[in-house]
């Protein structure tokens, strides 16, 4: 026979676990499993074999690394958390990549998008005598339409007004710094 204290302890424990579960679920950011294809080339359109690509996660750790093949391609599967800035646009995470290749400066690519079958081209800068030859920084292959929708989302959330259209232009007007009345 169980003691009343033991029964009360177990009941309280079970209650606590079940009551905490919804909050736990809410705090979990969705995970995305996807492959990213890195395509590494030089400015004169040569595909670079044997370039090493490091992938840095959003918590700053190296999550993958590998070498490009003779086509300059390295394909890798990644598991990343959803980037909340794009959560209303598509299921997408973002990582940072660093690329090293013989005869070229290192290249850091920020905001590499990760979604099914995403592609990240990387054009490396050759090491040149007499130049500073420092690491090069570049931005990831975020799509123009995703950027436009992200801007719309935050402008709408802030309640911004659109700027008046400019003659000679066609299409959407840009957002203004003013709040809508």
């Amino acid at each position: 026979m169980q003691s009343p204290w033991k029964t009360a302890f177990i009941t309280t424990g079970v209650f606590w676990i079940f009551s905490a579960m919804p909050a736990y679920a809410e705090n979990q950011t969705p995970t995305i499993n996807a492959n990213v294809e890195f395509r590494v080339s030089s400015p004169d359109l040569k595909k670079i074999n044997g370039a090493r690509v490091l992938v840095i996660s959003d918590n700053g750790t190296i999550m993958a690394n590998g070498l490009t093949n003779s086509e300059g391609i390295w394909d890798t599967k990644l598991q990343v958390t959803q980037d909340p800035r794009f959560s209303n646009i598509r299921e997408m995470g973002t990582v940072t990549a660093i690329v090293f290749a013989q005869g070229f400066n290192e290249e850091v690519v920020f905001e590499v998008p990760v979604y099914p079958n995403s592609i990240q081209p990387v054009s490396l800068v050759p090491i040149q005598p007499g130049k500073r030859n420092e690491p090069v920084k570049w931005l990831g292959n975020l799509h123009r339409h995703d950027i436009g929708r992200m801007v719309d989302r935050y402008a709408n959330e802030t309640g911004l007004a659109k700027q008046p259209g400019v003659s000679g232009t066609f299409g959407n007007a840009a957002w203004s710094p003013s709040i809508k009345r």
Partner: protein
Amino acid sequence: MSGLIKSLVSFFVVAFTLFFGESTKAPAQEINTIYNTAYPSVIRVAIRAYNNPSGPILWVQTVGFQEYCSDVLANEWIPSWNPEALRAGAIAVKMFAWYHSLHPVTASGWIYDVDNTTNYQEFKYQSGTYQTDLAVRDTWRMAYTPANGEILPLNYRSGIPFNANWSFIGSNFMSQWGSEYWASTAKMSYLNILALFYRGDSIHMI
């Protein structure tokens, strides 16, 4: 006497025409049409830093013309969009590039046909996807021009997401989001989508 004067005047008129007539006439500007102009084999792309329209030109890349179209379409249209929207986009991207390859510019000491930004069309080398490459190949033998076949740019803009973009209809500017809307919602073909936005032009096989 008056007969002599007339003869002299006629003589000088004929002589003037013979000596100066051709050189005073403005040279006729031949227009580039799909009938007298082949696709370029390559196109010169000025690479601006960060694909930023105001960025400095870092170098000029000479790219195969079809490869250029493939590496633009993936950045201008979303690769997961309806294939008919992608085909309409492929034709617009190609006609725009073809026109500019015939009208190069010189800036900051560089000679180029287009740059890699939305000053022209967003280009990223090796960014083509399976779907967008397919759309470029499917429409490669097609040109979209006025009746005389003149090679003119097919302009386009983003437009409003998930919207018919009525204001673009018949404007000679295609809405990219509009092309996706009409392909997905109204199940229109790429030829009908092009006809919707570009008034008076039609498809030609080349």
